[in-house]
């Protein structure tokens, strides 16, 4: 009702009026326009500063991570990965240890990027024995699988592949999957 009376009051101002609801915080249009222009300027300045710093500083990073721009691994599809598993390929789970415990490709070893420095020395001998390594992650974004695959290939492990499907697709295809054990209730 209040907005109705406001509308009628404002209408009395004459033809060409524009209804403006009262009681709502609003900023004048020129202020908003200036603010938005400045927001764009801030974005451009941040992009320029980031680009300049990363080009000049020794710790700067490139446009693409090395595992994308200079990949030492190859992608492998679901059915081909299964064939390789039958032929003796070793699977590496690059996800968090918690997710690994919650379900994984049967026979896969856990090697997440965060624990790479700690786990790798323990697994090195086992990894060296496998002719083919297939690394998988959580999603199709290929991180952390691509990162782990790059590190393994850099360390001289023969053939390193990254699974281009998700673990859910692997499981749905009916391929060997290790689910967590259910605890029996006493």
């Amino acid at each position, binding site marked *: 009702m209040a907005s109705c009376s406001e509308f009628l009051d404002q209408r009395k101002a004459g033809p060409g009026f524009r209804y403006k609801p009262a009681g709502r915080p609003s900023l004048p249009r020129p202020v908003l326009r200036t603010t938005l222009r*400045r*927001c764009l300027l801030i974005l451009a300045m*941040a992009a320029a500063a*980031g680009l300049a710093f*990363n080009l000049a500083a020794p710790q700067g990073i490139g446009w693409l991570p090395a595992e994308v721009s200079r990949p030492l691994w190859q992608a492998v599809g679901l059915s081909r990965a299964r064939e390789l598993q039958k032929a003796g390929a070793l699977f590496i789970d690059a996800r968090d240890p918690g997710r690994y415990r919650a379900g994984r490709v049967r026979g896969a070893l856990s090697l997440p990027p965060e624990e790479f420095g700690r786990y790798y020395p323990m697994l090195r001998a086992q990894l060296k024995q496998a002719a083919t390594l297939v690394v998988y992650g959580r999603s199709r*974004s290929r991180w952390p699988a*691509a990162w782990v695959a790059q590190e393994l290939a850099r360390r001289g492990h023969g053939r390193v592949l990254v699974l281009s499907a998700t673990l859910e697709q692997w499981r749905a295809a009916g391929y060997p999957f290790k689910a967590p054990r259910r605890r029996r209730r006493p």
Partner: protein
Amino acid sequence: MKIALQVISLGCRLFLAWLLIYASYDKVWEPAGFAASMARYELLPLWAVNGASVLLAWLELLVGTLLLVGLWVRAAALWAAGLMALFAGIMIYAGIIGAGYDCGCFPGGAGHTAGYGAALRDLGFMLPALWLFFLPSRWLALDGLRPGQAARLR
């Protein structure tokens, strides 16, 4: 009353400036580490991670610096609110997927796990940014030194 509002605005501005500069200096100085933190969420394709992480880190630093010196406060506050909304969204996503790792928000990373708690914290940080957007402080601010600008901010 006017003085009280100015004091609150000044407090919000300095708090947000400290928060953003503290959160960003490590990300700016060690871009590879922050890019790895961003990649861990698996929200972006790998080719977009480096560019987005560099832009985000410098945006945080620039917005924090502008708030500290009190220049373009309203625009900086709008960016700060936008950044907090973005971070809160990412933290909600982290909560949904059950990520138990460090959120990568602050240097050191101890005690800042990604998830719903961090999302609530980021939404809380949005409040001073929104306050500043509507009531930018003129005290101890470069904006306040320019008479035309001061009139616009009132």
